[in-house]
């Protein structure tokens, strides 16, 4: 037997011998679910918060399907979904409202998860994917497509996608110097972001008023242009990307402990970080391409989740659920509560920011 095996065996034997019989209490309630050697650990509070928000999301979806210029009762909605009711109700629900509602949930989840990844990897609660110029770059791409190339919807989507990714690549190239040092990366991101923002401002200034209004509405982040044709491919992309999340989560959770400890416990730090950021960038790009840069979900949802679940890191799955609820709720408010036509991005900013402020006040009162 090698020395190592002896050591391991000795440790295990001692632990069994000392065996208290009780499972280890880690100071936080959690559930270990396992069958046949495969196990998954779920934090209890985190799961409860996620479940609560999921139920809320279902409620929001129902609201989204019933409210509008053509009001329907829940019974009618159920009828449409189960295929018993046809006609105008069916069109309204299946072609207008359902795609938009589902898109809101998925896009919100995508943004929230991307924000959570960024904040975990940079260890900064104020980090958001926008620091690498994605939002501004997408806007630039979209404006170029709109003002110079004619502005059909596929063109706008493509422009936004290309603009955002080009911005991210440009920042990566400029910041890379024998490695991606965090500080340099962020500063270059801010520089490029600011340049793109001024380009956008300039283009908006020069455009016709109506065009500028339309572009700005998109630039604030809107679900108004989401149809089944755009929602389905984007939604599928989001689902596929989110399915990759479990591959990335354990590594970046370990990064919470600092690069050295993460590396020492077995994380390939450089690779893990790159994979995580790439996933986050893809998530944000897909959403921005279709709906424009929706602000604050990526920034606020992870922080809201972390405070509600009181967990040491950011639980990404729960964050996704919270983000979905946040965006759908905001869209409901934008559509039905506010008398004027406001882009959902405005509502997310106001809501998300206000909630954050409330949390800050609440926290300080609790501590005082």
């Amino acid at each position, binding site marked *: 037997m090698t020395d190592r095996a002896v050591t391991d065996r000795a440790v295990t034997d001692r632990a069994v011998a000392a065996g208290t019989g009780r499972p280890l209490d880690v100071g936080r309630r959690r559930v270990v679910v396992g069958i046949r050697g495969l196990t998954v650990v779920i934090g209890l509070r985190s799961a409860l918060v996620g479940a609560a928000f999921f139920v809320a999301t279902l409620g929001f979806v129902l609201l989204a399907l019933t409210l509008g210029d053509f009001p329907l009762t829940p019974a009618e909605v159920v009828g449409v979904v189960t295929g018993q009711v046809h006609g105008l109700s069916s069109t309204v629900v299946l072609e207008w409202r359902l795609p938009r509602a589902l898109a809101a949930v998925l896009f919100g989840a995508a943004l929230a998860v991307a924000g959570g990844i960024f904040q975990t990897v*940079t*260890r*900064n*609660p*104020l980090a958001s994917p926008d620091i690498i110029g994605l939002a501004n770059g997408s806007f630039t791409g979209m404006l170029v497509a709109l003002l110079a190339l004619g502005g059909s919807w596929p063109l706008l989507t493509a422009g936004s996608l290309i603009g955002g990714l080009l911005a991210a690549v440009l920042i990566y190239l*400029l910041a890379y*110097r024998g490695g991606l040092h*965090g*500080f*340099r990366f*962020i*500063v*270059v991101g*801010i*520089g*490029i972001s*600011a*340049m793109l*923002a*001024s*380009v956008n*401002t*300039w283009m*908006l*200034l020069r455009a016709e*008023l109506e065009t*500028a*209004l339309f572009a*700005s*509405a998109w630039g*604030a982040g809107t679900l108004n242009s989401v149809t089944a044709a755009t929602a389905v491919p984007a939604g599928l992309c989001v689902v596929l990307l989110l399915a990759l999340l479990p591959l990335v989560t354990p590594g970046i959770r370990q990064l919470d402990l600092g690069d050295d400890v993460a590396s020492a416990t077995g994380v390939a730090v450089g690779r893990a970080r790159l994979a995580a950021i790439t996933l986050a960038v893809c998530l944000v790009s897909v959403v921005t391409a279709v709906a424009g840069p929706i*602000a*604050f979900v990526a920034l606020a949802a992870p922080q809201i989740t972390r405070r509600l679940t009181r967990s040491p890191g950011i639980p990404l799955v729960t964050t996704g659920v919270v983000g979905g609820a946040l965006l759908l709720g905001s869209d409901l408010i934008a559509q039905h509560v*506010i008398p*004027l*036509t*406001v*882009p959902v*991005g*405005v*509502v*997310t*900013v*106001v809501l*998300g*920011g*206000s909630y*954050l*402020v409330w949390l*800050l*006040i609440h*926290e*300080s*009162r609790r*501590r*005082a």
Partner: protein
Amino acid sequence: MGAIVVPRVRAGRGSGRAAWFGAAVVALLLAVTLSVVVGANPMAPGTVLDTLFGGGSAESRFVVWDQRMPRTAAGVAVGAALGVAGALMQAFTRNPLADPGILGVNAGAAFFVAVGITFFGVTSPLGYVWLACAGALLLTGAVYAIGSAGGQAAGPVRLTVTGVAIGAVFAGLTTGLALTHPDAFDRMRGWSAGSLLERGFDVVLPVLPLVLVGLALALWAAPGLNSIALGPDVARSQGVNVRRIQIVVLAAVTLLAGSATAVAGPLVFVGLVVPHMVRWTLGTDQRRIVLGSMMLGPVLVLLSDVLGRVAVLPSEMPVGVVTAFVGAPVLILLVRRRSATAL
């Protein structure tokens, strides 16, 4: 990210520093000269000189005295104010990404201006000045009040997060307002680009006292900030009243950034970039950084303004658009230097 890295001081000896300031003075004079001489109305330098000393035609007097001189004065005031405000914010929050706007100055100013345009039909730059000033001061006050809720003095992190949150809320409200009122949108998109166009002496002079008070407070607080950079405990043991310095710094930032935004609209990038450039070439002594930013800020603003006047003749590119194009490459070049320090 907010870590303090012991610096390799760039201009370590007195002669190096003197040279830096000498060059800065020259650059400032050059920028001012360019700002007075160059413009959309081409004028020979001789004519300009003539007009400055009492001669010249009515037209040249109009261009020089009613347009370029006040504009230059505004540029100097705004540049100095933003540069110093940025330096103070970065030192106070120990975060190299801080700019004066994170305290909510820009969001407050923009919101009040938007409300003024939408509901009260305000259209003149002078009207904007009062609205913006009020908005900036009120919102920063709110940020500070909420950030300190609970009795403890607001620490830099809390203040930053609060500022970002409240700033975002009001930015969202402003956007919502503008997007639903096309007329207001049209005016706002001009104002929010950040411009020195049509800023006469009647716009600059009222805020000048605020700027001067802010600069004085900044110079007073700078030595204390050096100690605070070593940590509040070390600072206290050196006899620095940390709480007082923090209040003074916040007041200075509010006055400076509020005035600058009131005059020119939001020029965010200046406050972010100028202190970095000063720090990376001059070292980390806050007194020198404040002085250096006071000189370099106007250089950036004036040069950008001049560029904007002539780059897209016959129209004009607002200075806010140009500062990013001038400042960003410089920032990126500087940060790619191996010896860039974190703070």
